[in-house]
């Protein structure tokens, strides 16, 4: 190979290299499809992250170093500082993004703030406007290096007509390449393993190329770094470059560090590689070390190359941006120059492919699709193959982006060094920082705040950085910069409101970040966020606890699954169904929405889900559904509470009933034992006397008669007892027969006295009666007779044996008649007065034994009869000592009741 490179050699090397790249990508895709990923190693992840080092790094760093000395370094120190925080910040971003199927940085912002299509669109716009110059820069670097390679040592050719411009060919080639890598097929997770593998390979190539030229310059052209620096130190102009403050001011250094810190996180291509293409969140750990190491290595020789270039080409017009390439050419090292060219090509293609793919995804998912869906140009039903539509949009977006980049690069001409253009893009992307970082850690950050903050920051960036660059390129009058628009000095874009003494980038960063943060925080604090915004905020800030935002109510999950089937293929829909066999329609709907979000962005997926649901005011409906659910929950808990109270009451009742049952059971046992005892007594005597009569047939007739009398009497007593027991049982069971009728109570008493009179006369008992006429009562005559006879026989039994006296009185007491039967016997002790109404109890002793007259059931039966007719029966002291049984019966209130007046008696 001679000193010059022929065009065909360059073309062949480039073609071979690009072919190799494509082969790698193809192979990686094949491996991925086979489930044997090529990019599963953390080193591949770290290398692919080195896409950060674009041709801007490869060529531009030296250019900047030639002008500013070490001023180029903050651009790489910032990422190292951010790498220290990756384990905290990037990890969370990856976790959140995977959970929410985030496909791009715009998607991230839109999804965080309530899946806002407006915010996603704005973020996409900011990214496109900010990044197009950056893409232009890559194209410019490739075409410039190509031109240099072909024309060296002659001057660079002037730009010819568009169709002969190598830059156009490069742009077209890159567009085709990007489509092949980034938009060949639609992936549910928006992952491109082939692209990642190719980018990782390119990172190796560009590092090797740069190190090669660095080593050659340091040790081939000079005797090591020491000699190089020593020689440079003899030139005062160069020595100044090793001193601080040569280029960037102190403030500028810090701003540049901050700017690059944010860029490594927020540049669309970095987000694509670091978050979307991430295979395992654990890879972040080694990447935090490997990427800074990579950046350190690629920067090691920047200053030596710059110094060598400045010493080799002292003439003022030398293009320092291309020193990397010019030096090997000037030293007649065409092979090295070709390697450097390939390295630069690697840096440019890697950046362009990933950046354009990321931007195209954004444009498709967050700009075009939501617009199509929202404006109604697009009927879901009319498009059978949605995936083709999505891919089509992306491919068109890639071509358009590349065309924009080419147009910018051609129009911007030579006005700017590479470094300046790159920083403009960095500053644009930095506008995402408040919304993204705030969104990750501040739950109250809301859609309005993000929208206004991003818009304000973008406008500030536009005015203080982009428009001035237009002015410098000659698209705007130079008076725009100085003395300022309309001659207003305070409007100067590089010294807004008279803020002077800062370099343009620091100045722009200050103003844009100021308004951005102020608007984001201020508006977030002053406005409320809607339901879905709150749900998403929780999912992003607290990914471990955030609940999936299931669709409420009756979600048409089937229709949604059909949509998934049409966009991602029937297998994807089948998969969803299989993975969530137990899911409710709401959950299934959510999963389907997430799957769609992976292919077309959160905002578009939301719009699609909503159109499926035909649910116009989602926020309100969501809120209502939520309210409804909580109201139901509250009602449910109240019901439960009530039930538990009822249960408690029922169990208390049960306990009481159980107690009563036990009591009754005990009483029944008592009753049975007493009754059998009572029955046995007469039976015993009957049996005893019968045996005597049988065993002694020669018994005198008198005795025999007496014994037989006893037997008959005891049998009668037995009969009475059994009758009483049956009677009581009937009363207790409520089966007794009653014949209630109006009765003249005085007459009934007189009848009873007549019936029982013989008994009293036999005993020689004096009887006093006081029975005035009285209104009728309603009762059963025979039963009442039974009560009265019982009371009379009781009185006869217990009254004084010598001068027995019984008094029966009838009185009216209010609405009742009162009958009292008193004797002059010993009376009943107060403590026994209730006991005698128990079964088988008699006054003056324990259970009855040999008393011939009573069964012990008379009084309980009487009390039941009286109470049946609404009256009461009780015992009290008689006026002259002795006992007095009293019962009352209510007057008959039937209509035929006679007037009460004549019966009023004086006491």
């Amino acid at each position, binding site marked *: 190979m001679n000193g010059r490179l022929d065009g065909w050699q360059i073309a062949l090397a480039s073609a071979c290299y690009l072919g190799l790249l494509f082969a790698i990508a193809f192979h990686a895709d094949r491996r991925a499809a086979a489930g044997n990923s090529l990019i*599963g190693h953390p080193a591949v992840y770290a290398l692919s992250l080195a896409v950060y080092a674009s041709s801007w790094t490869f060529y531009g760093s030296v250019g900047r170093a030639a002008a500013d000395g070490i001023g180029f370094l903050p651009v790489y120190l910032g990422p190292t500082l951010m790498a220290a925080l990756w384990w905290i910040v990037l990890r969370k971003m990856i976790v959140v993004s995977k959970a929410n199927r985030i496909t791009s940085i715009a998607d991230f912002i839109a999804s965080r703030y309530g899946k806002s299509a407006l915010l996603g669109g704005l973020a996409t716009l900011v990214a496109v406007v900010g990044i197009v110059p950056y893409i232009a820069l890559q194209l410019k670097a490739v075409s410039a290096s190509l031109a240099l390679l072909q024309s060296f040592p002659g001057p660079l050719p002037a730009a010819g007509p568009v169709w002969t411009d190598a830059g156009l060919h490069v742009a077209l080639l890159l567009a085709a390449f990007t489509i092949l890598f980034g938009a060949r097929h639609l992936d549910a997770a928006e992952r491109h393993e082939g692209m990642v593998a190719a980018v990782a390979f390119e990172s190796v190539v560009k590092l090797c190329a740069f190190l090669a030229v660095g080593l050659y310059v340091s040790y081939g052209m000079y005797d090591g770094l*020491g000699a190089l620096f020593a020689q440079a130190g003899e030139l005062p102009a160069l020595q100044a470059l*090793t001193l601080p403050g040569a280029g960037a001011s102190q403030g500028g250094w*810090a701003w540049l*560090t901050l700017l690059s810190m944010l860029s490594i996180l927020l540049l669309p291509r970095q987000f694509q590689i670091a978050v979307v293409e991430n295979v395992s969140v654990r*890879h972040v750990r080694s990447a935090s070390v490997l990427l800074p190491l990579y950046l350190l290595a690629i920067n090691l020789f920047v200053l030596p190359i710059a110094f060598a270039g400045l010493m080799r080409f002292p003439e003022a017009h030398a293009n320092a941006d291309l020193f990397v390439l010019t030096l090997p050419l000037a030293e007649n090292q065409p092979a090295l120059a070709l390697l450097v060219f390939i390295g630069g090509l690697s840096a440019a293609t890697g950046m362009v492919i990933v950046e354009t793919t990321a931007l195209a995804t954004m444009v498709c998912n967050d700009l075009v699709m939501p617009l199509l869906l929202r404006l109604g140009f697009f009927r879901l039903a009319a498009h059978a193959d949605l995936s083709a539509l999505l891919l089509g949009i992306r491919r068109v977006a890639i071509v358009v982006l590349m065309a924009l980049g080419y147009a910018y690069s051609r129009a911007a001409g030579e006005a700017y060094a590479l470094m300046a253009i790159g920083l403009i893009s960095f500053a644009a992307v930095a506008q995402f920082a408040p919304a993204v970082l705030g969104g990750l850690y501040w739950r109250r950050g809301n859609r309005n705040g993000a929208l206004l903050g991003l818009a304000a920051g973008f406008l500030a960036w536009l005015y203080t950085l982009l428009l001035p660059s237009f002015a410098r390129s000659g698209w705007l009058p130079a008076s725009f910069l100085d003395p300022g628009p309309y001659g207003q000095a305070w409007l100067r874009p590089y010294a807004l409101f008279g803020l002077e003494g800062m370099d343009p980038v620091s100045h722009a960063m200050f103003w844009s970040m100021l308004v951005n943060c102020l608007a984001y925080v201020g508006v977030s604090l002053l406005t409320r966020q809607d339901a879905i915004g709150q749900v998403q905020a929780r999912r992003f800030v607290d990914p471990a606890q955030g609940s999936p935002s299931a669709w409420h109510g009756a979600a048409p999950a089937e229709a949604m699954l059909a949509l998934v089937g049409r966009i991602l293929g029937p297998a994807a829909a089948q998969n969803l169904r299989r993975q969530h066999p137990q899911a409710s329609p709401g959950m299934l709907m959510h999963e389907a929405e997430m799957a769609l979000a992976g292919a077309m962005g959160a905002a578009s997926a939301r719009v699609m889900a909503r159109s499926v649901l035909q649910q116009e005011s989602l926020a309100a409906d969501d809120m209502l559904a939520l309210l409804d659910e909580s109201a139901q929950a509250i009602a449910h808990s109240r019901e439960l509470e009530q039930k538990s109270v009822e249960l408690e009451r029922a169990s208390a009742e049960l306990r009481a009933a159980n107690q009563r049952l036990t009591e009754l059971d005990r009483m029944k046992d008592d009753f049975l034992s007493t009754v059998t005892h009572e029955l046995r007594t007469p039976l015993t005597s009957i049996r005893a006397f019968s045996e005597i009569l049988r065993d002694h047939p020669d018994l005198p007739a008198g005795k025999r008669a007496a014994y037989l009398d006893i037997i008959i009497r005891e049998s009668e007593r037995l009969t009475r007892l059994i009758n009483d027991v049956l009677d009581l049982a009937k009363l207790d069971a409520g089966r007794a027969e009653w014949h209630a009728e109006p009765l003249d109570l005085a007459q009934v008493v007189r009848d009873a006295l007549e019936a029982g009179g013989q008994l009293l006369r036999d005993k020689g008992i004096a009887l006093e009666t006081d029975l005035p006429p009285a209104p009728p009562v309603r009762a059963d005559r025979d039963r009442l007779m039974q009560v009265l006879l019982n009371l009379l026989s009781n009185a006869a039994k217990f009254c004084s044996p010598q001068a027995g006296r019984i008094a029966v009185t009838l009185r009216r007491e209010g609405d009742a008649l009162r009958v009292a039967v008193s004797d002059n016997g010993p009376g009943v002790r107060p403590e026994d007065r209730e006991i005698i109404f128990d079964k088988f109890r008699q006054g003056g002793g324990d259970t009855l034994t040999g008393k011939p007259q009573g069964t012990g059931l008379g009084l309980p039966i009487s009390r039941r009869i009286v109470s049946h007719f609404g009256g009461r029966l009780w015992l009290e002291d008689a006026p002259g000592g002795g006992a007095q049984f009293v019962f009352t019966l209510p007057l008959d209130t039937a209509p035929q009741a006679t007037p009460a007046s004549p019966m009023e008696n004086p006491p």
Partner: protein
Amino acid sequence: MGRPGLTAERLLALFAAGWLLLNYPLLALFGRLGPVAGIPALYLYLFVAWALLIAGIALVLGLGRDAYDEQA
């Protein structure tokens, strides 16, 4: 690495230290020194501090100990 909270705090401290070390006014201090072994002091310092910062990250994240389980 045991306690994630501790790791996060160590990383934050490392970040703060890195920010201070790789920024003014410390850089101005090194800018005043003469060349060390023929290499400008500021240039040398920046790369050494940078390398130390990377080593610090590696140490805190425990890369030496269990780098093997990184593989997915």
